[in-house]
């Protein structure tokens, strides 16, 4: 029996597999498919303080081995979430993480504060990196100073452990990761989607209603892996890796690159039970390689 548990310091997970925000609804959407307690945990869809309408459709376009979305963080807002959804999630044994959004620093803090006053959450993931909200995909995660300020402000507003989710749409991701660490974040998760677009040849219009969107799926995996590798070497904090993970082999690459846990995103759309398949695949791989504890492989990438 392989020990799949991993320790993030502030959080012990029964296995390293978390479902990623924006691909797992509020969690309950996946209840018909399997027992959510089998997961390491899941991150619910991004929450703003107020309900949010989201972007105009079309919101999805498929590209080779990838998916560009411009959902625009449509959602119910914190009040309705805490009233109607969180009590259901609180009954679960698995780790439930809320994804915190904001139009400006104050809103991030208000959302974090509101969520912290309710039972059922194991941590907050600070979404300073969604490319779909402001024009041109701007967000705090695009520079270290804004990242530092936002993380600092949210830290003051919550007692829950804080994971900062980084954007790949930067020239130097390590500097942003270090800023989050310095500001008191307890973990780093990366990567969010890559700012992208697609054009219809007949109409010459962008295929997304919002013109640009965020690319996810296997197409981005090598970039995500590289960034996780870079950040894991630079920070002392635990790193949660994601970006195009579809198989246990993908997950293992991220862990070897230095991720202490991983998140599965777009794969949940294709196979609602993708996370389970990956958890089982990790156990099978470890057994085959006579590894007793999956945590042994974290950061074991061999560089000559």
């Amino acid at each position, binding site marked *: 029996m392989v020990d799949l548990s991993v320790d993030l310091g502030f959080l012990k997970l029964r296995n390293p597999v978390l479902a990623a925000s924006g691909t797992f609804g509020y969690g309950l959407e996946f209840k018909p498919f399997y027992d959510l307690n089998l997961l390491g945990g899941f991150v619910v869809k991004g929450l703003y303080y107020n309900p949010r309408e989201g972007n105009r459709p079309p919101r999805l376009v*498929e590209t080779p081995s990838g*998916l560009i979305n411009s*959902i625009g963080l*449509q959602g119910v807002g914190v009040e309705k979430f805490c009233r109607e959804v969180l009590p259901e999630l609180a009954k679960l044994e698995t780790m439930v993480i809320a994804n915190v959004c904001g139009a400006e620093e104050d809103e991030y803090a208000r959302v974090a504060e509101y969520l912290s006053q309710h039972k059922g959450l194991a941590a907050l993931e600070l979404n300073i990196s969604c490319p779909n909200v402001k024009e041109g995909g701007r967000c705090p995660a695009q520079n270290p100073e804004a990242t530092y300020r936002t993380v600092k402000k949210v830290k003051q507003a919550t007692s829950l452990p804080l994971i900062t989710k980084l954007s790949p749409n930067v020239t130097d991701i390590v500097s942003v990761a270090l800023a989050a660490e310095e500001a008191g974040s307890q973990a780093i998760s990366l990567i969010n989607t890559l700012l992208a677009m697609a054009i219809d040849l007949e109409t010459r219009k962008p295929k997304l209603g919002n013109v640009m969107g965020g690319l996810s799926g296997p197409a981005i995996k090598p970039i995500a892996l590289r960034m996780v590798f870079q950040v894991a070497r630079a920070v002392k904090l635990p790193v949660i890796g994601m970006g195009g993970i579809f198989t246990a082999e993908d997950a293992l690459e991220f862990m070897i690159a230095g991720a202490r846990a991983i998140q599965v995103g777009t794969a*949940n*759309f294709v196979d*609602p039970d993708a996370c389970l398949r990956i958890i089982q695949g990790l156990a099978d791989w470890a057994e085959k390689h006579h590894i007793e504890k999956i945590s042994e492989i974290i950061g074991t990438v061999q560089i000559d």
Partner: protein
Amino acid sequence: MIIDRKARLIKVESSKDYHLLSLESPEIARNARPGQFLMIKVSEGTRPLLRRPFSLHNAEGPIVEIFFQVVGEGTRLLAQKKPGDALDILGPLGNGFSLKPDFGSQEVFCIGGGRGIAPIYFLARELQKTGVRPTVFYGGRTETDLPLKTRFETAGCELLISTDDGSAGFSGLVTALVEKELERRRPAFLFACGPEPMMETLAEICQRHNLKGEFSLESIMGCGFGACWGCVKKIKKSQEAGYLKICQEGPVFPWEEIVWQEAENG
């Protein structure tokens, strides 16, 4: 919601670029209702990446059927499947048409435009089981765009055909045929599925004639079960309009709740 990783393809019927696939999937078939849909994996690999949505064309015994036109890479791959192949399907999904109202001996119109005819067959058959004899309107560009004509006739439906070029049946749009028919009779309810311009015109007709009805909407979908928020349409419930998920809150909506593109942009 059931994931059937081994739904056996038992029959393929093709006509031009239209295809009718019969799949053995007992559990999904047993739970299926007209207006619901399936998400089908068309490729083993990551290209295309996502499943494709197909409305249920029929469900009978252990068999579910889909009817589709090749319009892109996903449908092209699906059209190449052979009897004996096992498909990975997810369903039944979505709300489906409401068959609750007691139509009795009243008229019910079922309108399908192009490949939008797909769910109308299942609907018409279920209506027949409740004693209703629905009138099916089936419109296409030209005669060869009406491959299901015989199927509806065999099922004993009253079938009215239209083609844009007049090569079969009424010459003109299916919506004009509906208008013409409304001059002499009035349905208690109207169901429709087809291209958006067709349904928008139908909504105008329903408004003018004060008719009740439900339309089934089509969209690109990420997941099919409410997780991605990718397939939304602006829907107006009690005066307030917002983006609802076609996969979960739909794909069937009362016509008066649907906010059409023009209104949305304006």
